[in-house]
């Protein structure tokens, strides 16, 4: 029996020894990657709360493979993935820490280039580039009692100017909070979609639209549009607005909680106009025969817009379908039947040089980038991308 005791003690000692010998992973070595990249992908892995977002990047989407077993950097410990991307850099507001960050993805790693304390808005609800180095971000205060903006020098993150928008329509009875929607900039003028809500997130049967002088931020015009409720999801998580080559800015209305019952519309404002184009209205819900329109729209040029919707007839998941619609005729001009059905996450498509790039999270064990060339009207299969994941949180280009 004594032998048993010695065996037990020896076994425990062995555990300790083994424990002390296990090697902590080294930060040296590994896949080195490239210094600069043109494209990136954010893949979400794992079920909540163990969901981790990984960033991978490449310079060529037409071939090869993104292999998460070899490459990629987790981004959750560094910031949110509410990314504003421009000129090779990523801008991100970590609002719980009160820090605005500028990242660069280099050598297969997300690196902080610059960070500053920033607390002026609760979160980025909307943004617009005034020029290639000047970024305007907008959001509400924590109680959504006012809408604020900050103009930032994207080079060094220095703050050029910040204030609350003054002269907006005051709260009508029953409503006590603002919501910010799409914002665009033409010729020293800001156009901003905004709305009201109450404590229970009930919203009125209209949204508001303001035209603002950029030089002194006076509101030149503010009016209501009762063609739809709600505002667009214009935060950097989503891509629901765009500007055409004719300088027409398109923005949708996503009714908040009542969205299952109410249609989603697309509206527009034209450069130089006092306010929105009251003659233009595009019912996206009707376009897809009442199916659920997702929060991503892409403009391909030549009045063609990509729309993603979920088709429940294909199941409760992996049912995302893509179409092209004409902004003027308001008809579907192409269905992307070549693409497998998608399980969309947030932002899995982008446009560059007349080509539409899709990161499709399909049921198959082979996920690929798919490239639609509007000049040839052909869809080709590109790079192999991670499979069996929750979804692609962001698929985008680093440079315009």
């Amino acid at each position, binding site marked *: 029996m004594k032998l048993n005791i010695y065996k037990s003690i020896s076994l*425990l000692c062995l555990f300790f020894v083994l424990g002390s010998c296990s090697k*902590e*992973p080294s930060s040296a070595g590994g896949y080195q990657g490239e210094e600069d990249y043109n494209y990136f992908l954010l893949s979400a892995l794992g079920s909540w709360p163990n969901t981790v977002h990984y960033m991978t990047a490449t310079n060529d989407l037409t071939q090869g493979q993104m292999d998460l077993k070899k490459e*990629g950097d987790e981004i*959750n410990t560094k910031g949110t993935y509410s990314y504003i991307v421009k000129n090779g850099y990523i801008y991100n507001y970590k609002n719980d820490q009160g820090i605005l960050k500028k990242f660069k993805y280099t050598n297969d790693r997300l690196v902080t280039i610059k960070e500053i304390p920033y607390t002026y808005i609760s979160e980025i609800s909307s943004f617009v580039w005034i020029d290639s180095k000047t970024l305007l971000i907008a959001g509400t205060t924590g109680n959504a009692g006012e809408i604020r903006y900050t103009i930032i020098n994207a080079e060094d993150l220095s703050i050029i100017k910040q204030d609350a928008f003054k002269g907006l329509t005051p709260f009508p009875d029953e409503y006590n909070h603002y919501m910010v929607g799409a914002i665009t900039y033409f010729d020293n003028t800001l156009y901003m979609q905004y709305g009201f809500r109450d404590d229970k997130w009930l919203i009125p049967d209209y949204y508001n639209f303001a035209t603002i002088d950029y030089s002194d931020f006076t509101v030149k015009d503010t009016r209501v549009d009762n063609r739809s409720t709600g505002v667009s999801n214009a935060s950097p998580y989503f891509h629901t607005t765009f500007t055409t080559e004719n300088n027409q800015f398109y923005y949708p209305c996503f009714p908040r*909680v009542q969205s299952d019952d109410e249609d989603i519309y697309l509206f527009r404002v034209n450069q130089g106009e006092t306010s929105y184009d009251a003659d233009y209205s595009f019912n996206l819900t009707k376009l897809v025969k009442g199916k659920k329109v997702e929060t991503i729209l892409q403009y391909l040029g030549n009045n063609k817009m990509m729309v993603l919707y979920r088709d429940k007839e294909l199941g409760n*998941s992996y049912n995302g379908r893509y179409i092209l619609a004409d902004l003027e005729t308001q008809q579907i001009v192409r269905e992307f039947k070549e693409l497998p059905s998608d399980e969309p996450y947030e932002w899995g498509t982008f446009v560059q040089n007349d080509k539409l790039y899709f990161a499709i999270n399909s049921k198959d064990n082979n996920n690929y980038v798919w490239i639609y060339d509007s000049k040839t009207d052909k869809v080709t299969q590109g790079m192999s991308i991670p499979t069996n994941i*929750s979804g692609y949180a962001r698929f985008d280009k680093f440079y315009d």
Partner: protein
Amino acid sequence: MKTYWTITFAVISVLFHLNLHAQTAVGSIKGVVLDENSLPAIGATVMIDKTTTGTATNEQGEFVLQSNLGSTTITVNYIGYKPYSKTIAVKEGTQSLRIKLEQDLAVLNDVVITAKSKVTSLKEEAFTVNAIDMKQLANSTMDLNQILNKTSGIKIRQQGGVGSDYNFSINGMSGKAVKFFIDGVPLEMLGKGVDMNSLPINMAQRVEIFKGVVPVHLSTDAMGGAVNIISNGTSKDYLDASYTIGSFNTHKVNLNGQLKDQKTGLIMRVNTFLNKSDNDYKMKDMKIWNTNTNAFELKDVKRFNDEYQSLFVMGEFGIEDKSWADQLFVGVSHSLFDKNIQTGADQEVVYGKLKQDGDANNYFVKYKKANLLNDKLDINFYTGYSKSLETSTDTVLRKYSWDGSYVPSATSELGGYQINKKHEDRLYSQLTTTYRIAENHKFTANYTFDYLKNTSYNTLVNKKSDITPSKMTKQILSLAYQQDFFDKRWSNIFFAKYYKVDLEKLVFNRETRLDEKVKEPYDNWGYGIASTFKITDKLGVKASYEHSYRLVEPDEIFGDGVSVTANMELKPETSNNYNLGFYYSNNFADHFVRAEVAGYIRDTKDFIYTVQNLHNSTFKYENLTNILTKGIEGEVNYQYKDLIRVMMNITYNYAYNNTKYANNSNDVVSATYKKEVPNQPWLFGNVDVSIGQNNIIQEGSRLEFHYGLQMTEWYYKNWQSYGNKRNIPTIPRQTLHNVGVSYSMQNGKYNFALDCTNIGDALAYDNFKLQKQGRAFYFKFRYALK
């Protein structure tokens, strides 16, 4: 399933029948042996004089002997107590005896080594249990969490210092899956100021930690295990008072006392404690903004918004040792706490004015009577009503930095801008009855009624009178049948638990724009088995299984109609828990050795989490994750006389994602299926050594030195299988050394202890980069009058 039950009941019936026949006899002496506290004397020997006939008492202190008819003298021996003899006239049938032993102070010093304590007996029960004898630790300056964190299979991840939030994990399961009790009553009844962090160790006689499989007397939906703190149940006068002072302006005062009138049996008991700490320990390399360089730089700073204090007073008045009651107590307690909150789950999020406070009152009645109906029936009843209020204050529009400076912010610190009040009214009653249908066969039934009314609101927006509370009524009926064979070498416990829950809440209906009352009844069956077999007197094996639940709560299923949407499809979290363990204990002259090794599996399904509805910034609760946990743990205890005690344990815990399909599909296998779950310690262990000598300097004194080592192996923050290897953050290995010395005089009447924790001032964190305190010193004076 029907076949399974048919076979199970058939086997039980046959075994029961066989045993009934075997025990029919004439001239039986049946009795119970109690110690001076009226607690069962376990393992006491009962002999018939001038014969070789004898037996040992069981875990209830009971024994049965057969004897010739006529005058017979029996003698009871129990180490640490004076021998007891009594002559009785044995007649046909069964005679009952109740024997109360007297302590023998002359031999008390040797008791620790030779007697099988309650703790050891518990460890040999069929359930997988850690039982900690708090008497040996009474002079320690540690809190309960720190002590339990040193036992096998337990990992407590604490966010900061005294009073900070913690996550208590038993064999890899944590959160709402683990429930806490004090003397079998949910700890929450005493208010938020009373938890494992604040309860003084001197209030506890021992602590029992049930792993995975929970006995029926702790009747609740504890899916992953339960911790039961057993308070001092002695029936004589005592006073135990202590004061601890330590680093970071830490002060802890504890006073427990009891007065008993031996003639009338009337008892008055008081338990009280006060904890206070600034928790202003040093944080290393924190990011501070430098306006001159326009950049962040790293500095060592002190925590500045982490003050904590809690107060607890409980008075009990009752009577003992009456024909109609072994114990009847009425009691009242009051607790309050006040704590500032320095940081959340991420230490780069700094709070400067965030705070919580609250108080709770509890009123209760306890009744206990054993050996009714001819020594066959025991009754234990508790009913209590508690009323508590917790206030969370988040009203400062500032963003703080680690140096204590701040800038104006668009939002309050947590973003909610509120003074949130949570009123809870709770009525908790439980009745436990044990019926011994025959020797070696008994039934235990437990019925628990738990009613909770919760009224939560933001005082800046609403009044309490405007709020309709949510209500939850849980009724749990638990039944257990225990059978013992081969002179109690083999014991089986079969149990089943029926859960019935009624939920009620007022939810805002967006269509009618009105608040509407919604109700949801719910019921489920849980069941399990626990078995132990003593292969020899020294060596035993035990195994247990439970199919258990963690029931849904009103907020989870109904939402609030505003920011949390309803999910009526929500299922309770479930788990199949398996344990298999071996134990061995032996004395070799003056050496005592005990070794345990156990393996476990937790197959948990449908963990409930909040998820964001992407399209409209609302949330809902979903059954999202399945986890399979496998682990092995081992512990060795060694003691030489009263001189040296050594404890070593190690736990290997491997948890992997068992959620097979991605995105609620039924055919897309998730990339993380069967992959190791991130951010979980997988290997941790402890070594405790104490060396002490009695009668140093003066008679009746004891000097003792302690050394403790806590090791947690490095682990991955994220999925280890994915991403560039050099990019995966890890929580590095942590090795903490603690030392201490204690000196007690006059047989433990006056006690002094000095402890130094984390003597190497190592950087320690339980959660990713959430620093815990470095080196700290504590001094404790304790006065114990017994």
